């Protein structure tokens, strides 16, 4: 048997069911891996006692013959999900040491399925960022090249999986925060249709965009986790879709002969780095070999998705983050003159630069006299962007293109230039605004031998089809099996 950390979710679950390894042994192995590679900055918190108690409970279920698909598999959670047994910080000083009285729905669903929690993973503060440099606690290093960023905001999640510190992790994606770090770290990640996973207990950033999803090595592993994560939650999440829970692994092996893959010409313009383009072109060619048909499509408002997203997301963030006022939870300034001063100083001390910037933009675009010109106009263009996708899906079943214009950049290279960071989100924002499911699938290596991810976008609730397309690709390629040297 190969070392435990070489196993993916499906393989490890099979070993657990076959009693070749116990959940406690698996948890201990991964906790030791996490400690050994703590310098990567992936974990914000671990608690061996909590983890092992969960593992023992999983072992009890296993020995009673329970054969649930991910029972006993250790995973880690992005620290944007609240947890009873670990602190929940959202990567912010504002919530340092915050203890939630309840578990997020996603956390509870995975626990019910028997997954064991290894700990909480680093992320950009309140999930705002594309490089994980906005964590208030520490940066996360990309295991493929430690001088580079891992992507964000689910950077800790991507690194934990890429460096084999966990077989899988949860992430959240508001404008690309699962897909972009998955691409930069050479792993697989999926953001389901908006409303599929309950937002209950996900610390809110932009409520009309936020969506949880799994990050793992393969599409098959993602499918297993996604099936456990998703499901209606009508009483606690007003935007939860009311469709029944699904087995997203049901059609992994379906043939993809004749699958029509739409290639949006706007994703291949001059902004796309040549090394990324080469890897994406090769992946599309591979799909051709597998029998898929490539169709050129147009998503004419791709560029507009940047201003539209960066109006809507900050507007919702400024509203959501108004709850951090130093009264009911979180940080409170130690010196202040009166209540107003307490609010202002608490928020000045508790929030980092990027969060403040977005609160400022959001407050401005929602303020009297500007709402129609900015927020409402953005919401209208958002509909046009969603309509463009529906036009495109008349000609194709799945859309494919790059996740990001470049490979992971150097730490510090863009940290003083927020607008440059916003522009780099161009290929993930359209699907976010439209609420469509999207994936990143490892498809090669670009400059400096850094991983490149292929983005697959499906129509509403077509996750099983996306995962099928990704799985067939992974049956024919081995990019998802490559790992950084030394791990």
């Amino acid at each position, binding site marked *: 048997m190969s070392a435990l950390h070489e196993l993916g979710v499906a393989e490890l679950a099979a070993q657990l069911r076959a009693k070749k390894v116990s959940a406690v042994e698996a948890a201990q192995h991964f906790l030791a891996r996490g400690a050994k590679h703590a310098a990567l900055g992936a974990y914000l918190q671990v608690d061996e006692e909590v983890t092992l108690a969960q593992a023992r409970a999983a072992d009890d279920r296993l020995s009673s013959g329970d054969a649930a698909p991910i029972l006993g598999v250790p995973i880690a959670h992005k620290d944007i999900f609240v947890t009873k047994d670990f602190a929940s910080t959202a990567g912010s000083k504002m919530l340092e040491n915050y203890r939630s009285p309840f578990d997020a729905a996603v956390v509870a669903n995975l626990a019910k399925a028997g997954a064991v929690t290894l700990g909480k993973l680093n992320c950009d503060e309140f999930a705002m960022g594309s490089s994980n440099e906005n964590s208030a606690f520490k940066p996360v290093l990309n295991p493929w090249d430690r001088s580079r960023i891992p992507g964000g905001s689910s950077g800790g999640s991507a690194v934990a999986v890429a460096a084999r510190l966990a077989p899988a992790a949860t992430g959240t994606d508001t404008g690309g925060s699962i897909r972009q770090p998955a691409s930069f770290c050479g792993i697989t990640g999926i953001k389901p249709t908006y409303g599929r996973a309950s937002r209950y207990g996900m610390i809110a950033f932009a409520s009309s965009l936020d969506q949880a999803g799994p990050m793992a090595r393969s599409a098959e592993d993602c499918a297993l986790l996604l099936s456990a994560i998703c499901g209606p939650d009508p009483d606690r999440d007003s935007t939860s879709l009311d469709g029944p829970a699904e087995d997203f692994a049901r059609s992994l092996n379906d043939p993809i002969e004749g699958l029509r893959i739409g290639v949006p010409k706007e994703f291949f313009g001059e902004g796309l780095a040549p090394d990324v383009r080469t890897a994406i072109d090769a992946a599309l060619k591979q799909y051709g070999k597998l029998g898929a048909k490539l169709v050129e499509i147009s998503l004419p408002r791709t560029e507009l998705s940047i201003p539209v997203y960066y109006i809507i997301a900050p507007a919702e963030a400024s509203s959501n983050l108004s709850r951090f006022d130093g009264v009911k939870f979180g940080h409170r300034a130690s010196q202040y003159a009166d209540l107003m001063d307490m609010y202002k100083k608490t928020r*000045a001390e508790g929030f980092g630069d990027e969060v403040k910037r977005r609160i400022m933009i959001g407050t401005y675009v929602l303020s009297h006299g500007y709402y129609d*010109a900015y927020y409402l106009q953005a919401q209208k263009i958002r509909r046009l962007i969603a309509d463009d996708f529906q036009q495109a899906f008349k000609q194709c079943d799945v859309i494919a293109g790059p996740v990001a214009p470049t490979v992971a950049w150097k730490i510090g290279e863009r940290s003083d230039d927020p607008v440059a960071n916003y522009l780099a989100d161009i290929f993930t924002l359209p699907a976010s605004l439209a609420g469509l499911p999207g994936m990143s699938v490892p498809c090669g290596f670009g400059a400096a031998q850094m991983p490149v991810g292929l983005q697959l976008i499906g129509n509403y609730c077509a996750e099983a089809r996306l995962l099928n397309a990704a799985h067939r690709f992974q049956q024919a390629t081995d990019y998802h099996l490559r790992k950084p040297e030394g791990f």
Partner: protein
Amino acid sequence: MALNPQDIARIAHLARLELSASEGERMLAQINEFFAIVEKMKAVDTTGIEPLPHPVAAVREVDLRLRDDVASEPIEREANQRSAPAVERGLFLVPKVIE
């Protein structure tokens, strides 16, 4: 249209954020740079287009439901107040607001 330092001060007050002078200056430059890319959005003709608040509403009707107004989980005051900055006898403490 560019924002000026007074706009930044006004927005910071609305957002309940204390900004130092240097922070305010940096913020002004960055926000103005950002609004340069927003200008493109203003030129789009959206006459007769309905705003899209829930993305799935692009293809089917989605009602933003309310749950029934009945008591469900009990309120666990102690757990809820565990991470509060200042609590006394089950109450949240704030600076004096009424003289």
